[in-house]
């Protein structure tokens, strides 16, 4: 179905189900319980899951498959955001024209940067992309102020023309009248589930672009991108010019980033240059490797993981810690708070840095590899107890023969 194998179709349906059920799944704790603060089922956070998921899925097509580490993808994120806010200013608050513009512009931008950067590989490629992104960032802050509104950031003012604004058009981001920030709250017993228009809009887009990435992973094109990662020389001698393949991957991932940036502005009609800073590029790298570069689900999990803990950790401050450890004797309590507080609240960045190091050192394959290791640990145990493990039947092997490892 949809050009996918039965297994992949099932996988896609599973991911679709998870995405659509997110407002329920991420709200496991009842409102009255003290654990309610760990719920993640509110619109703003769920939107960020989906948007950064898109960003990471796109980045993974480049980094995960080809191994080319771009340190400049935040530039495309910024281009996407600016595009959407400009269509607000010139046309109306309908998000659709802006998102299309975001994808097109970031694609053109990526075509240019990619064409130049892909003349080199390895560290040089990383530094070239970094240089381009820093250039864009610096320009957005200085001479491009008429386009970006500099430090203030781009936003919509009453004096903006908004040529397509009709009489009844909403003055907040919407899709043909469907307002993004609208939510429906459904109380079920002690639980409150929030179904938000903006989240479902980003979620549907996220599912669609996930499907595209799945197709790319399973295509001959995807195979050749993997081959580039493992041995580019051989590919050359096998008759393939790697540059068009790399450029295509770069542009696709740039368009994903542009779409993500556009969606950020579709949820919140603002765009600032700090979105283009190289730390933002570093964040998407982290999401991708934390989840598992080169796997389909990994980057999405990585994005969700980081955005969730960013949100939770930043909320925890000393008062919260005092609440938690209130029952403990004072010296123990103070000790625990002293140990934990540097890592939470404003210290989230520190935790992030440590996490980054730990993942690269111990688990370069990310969460997906970790899950696989744990999985094989459980699978091996019964066979050790039950005598000789059965050899894999050839038929079974043939069926899965064309599926690259997840």
């Amino acid at each position: 179905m949809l050009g996918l194998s039965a297994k992949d179709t099932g996988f896609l349906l599973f991911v679709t189900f998870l995405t659509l059920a997110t407002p329920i799944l991420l709200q496991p704790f009842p409102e009255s319980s003290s654990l309610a603060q760990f719920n993640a089922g509110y619109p703003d956070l769920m939107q960020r899951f989906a948007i950064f998921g898109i960003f990471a899925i796109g980045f993974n097509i480049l980094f995960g498959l080809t191994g080319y580490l771009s340190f400049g993808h935040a530039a495309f994120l910024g281009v996407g955001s600016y595009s959407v806010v400009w269509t607000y200013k010139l046309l109306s608050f309908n998000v659709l024209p802006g998102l299309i513009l975001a994808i097109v512009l970031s694609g053109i931008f990526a075509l240019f940067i990619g064409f130049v950067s892909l003349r080199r590989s390895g560290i040089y490629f990383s530094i070239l992309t970094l240089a381009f992104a820093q250039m864009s960032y610096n320009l957005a802050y200085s001479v491009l102020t008429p386009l970006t509104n500099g430090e203030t950031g781009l936003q919509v003012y009453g004096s903006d023309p908004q040529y397509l604004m009709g009489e009844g058009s909403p003055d907040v981001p919407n899709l043909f009248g469907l307002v993004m920030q609208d939510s429906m709250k459904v109380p079920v017993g002690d639980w409150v589930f929030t179904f938000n228009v903006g989240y479902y809009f980003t979620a549907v887009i996220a599912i669609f672009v996930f499907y595209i990435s799945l197709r790319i992973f399973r295509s001959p094109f995807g195979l050749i991108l993997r081959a580039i990662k493992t041995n580019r020389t051989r590919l050359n001698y096998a008759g393939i010019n790697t540059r068009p393949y790399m450029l295509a991957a770069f542009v696709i991932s740039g368009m994903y980033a542009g779409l993500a940036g556009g969606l950020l502005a579709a949820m919140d009609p603002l765009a600032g240059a700090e979105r283009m800073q190289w730390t933002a590029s570093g964040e998407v790298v982290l999401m991708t490797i934390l989840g598992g570069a080169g796997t389909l689900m990994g980057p999405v999990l990585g994005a969700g993981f980081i955005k969730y803990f960013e949100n939770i950790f930043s909320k925890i401050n000393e008062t919260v810690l005092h609440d938690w450890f209130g029952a403990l004797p004072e010296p123990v309590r103070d000790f625990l708070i002293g140990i934990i507080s540097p890592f939470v609240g404003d210290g989230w960045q520190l935790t992030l840095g440590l996490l980054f190091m730990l993942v690269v050192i111990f688990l370069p394959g990310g969460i997906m590899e970790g899950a696989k290791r744990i999985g094989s640990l459980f699978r091996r145990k019964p066979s050790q107890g039950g005598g000789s493990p059965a050899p894999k039947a050839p038929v079974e092997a043939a069926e899965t023969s064309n599926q690259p490892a997840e």
Partner: protein
Amino acid sequence: MDAIILQILNGLDKGSAYALIALGLTLIFGTLGVVNFAHGALFMIGAFCAVTLQRILTLSFEQVDPTQKDFLGNPLKVQVPYVESWFGPDIGAFIIDWAVPLAILLAIPVMLVIGIAMERGLIKHFYKRPHAEQILVTFGLAIVLQEIVKLFFGANPIQTGAPSVFTGSFDFGALLGMPPDVIIYPYWRMVYFLFAVVVIGAVFSFLQFTTFGMVVRAGMADRETVGLLGINIDRRFTIMFGVAAVVAGTAGVMYAPILAPNYHMGMDFLVLSFVVVVVGGMGSLPGAVAAGFLLGILQSFASMNEVKSVIPGIDQVIIYLVAIIILLTRPRGLLGRRGVMEE
């Protein structure tokens, strides 16, 4: 003419900092083959060594000064730094005034320890890993280091003054027979440039004239052969990592009066220093130094109003533009050896 001299002078101190950081990056890359994204953090830690020493020196206790009264007529309580009470007010005040240069004495052992610990504890395990993973793990380390500094010193820049003798400016124009105040150059920036020249000279003579340096240079050229001679090249490389850390750290100490230390200054300098290394030629020490000064001066020319009015925004992007052009036309950089990381 005077404008040109002024811009060259203005570019020198920034260029010195680029050159010093790039020198360390190149040493590490040349010896260990590792791309160290945490090198800017070492520069930043150096700057905070200056802040720390200044704080230590100004640690004070409260004392009643019988000679002064507050506005109510009570004896005034004043803060007296311990150094002043130990060494007397004159010498004490002098020591405090000279906190930044003195901080070099603190920075050398601190940076050496940090550098060696970093190499032995972390980088060592990444020699055989792909460059992408080296970049990522050192990038993570850089975040950790700067966040720790932020934890202790806060997010705001901390003003750290140069010794008062250096606070004025030198009338450079007068030296060339120009009217006064046409080209003036702050003394401390001059000191920084001279300091950079001395450090660069010291590193080069160390590599050139000591047996230790000879082995390191041989190892940079051909690690395997030197290894086959039964020379323990790894230990020497570890020490070179420490040396690179010291160079970056002391460069940071001396830069504190020019740019008030803040926790993210390392990242800002790192990106530019990488560009410098690439322009100079990956693995080429003279290239790193030359490109550092060149780009510093170029940047200061680009920020002249005459230039900016012709090409708006050029001051913001000049360094990156140069790097992109160099990478595309001459991938081994200005002074790089043929075949080193040319891909």
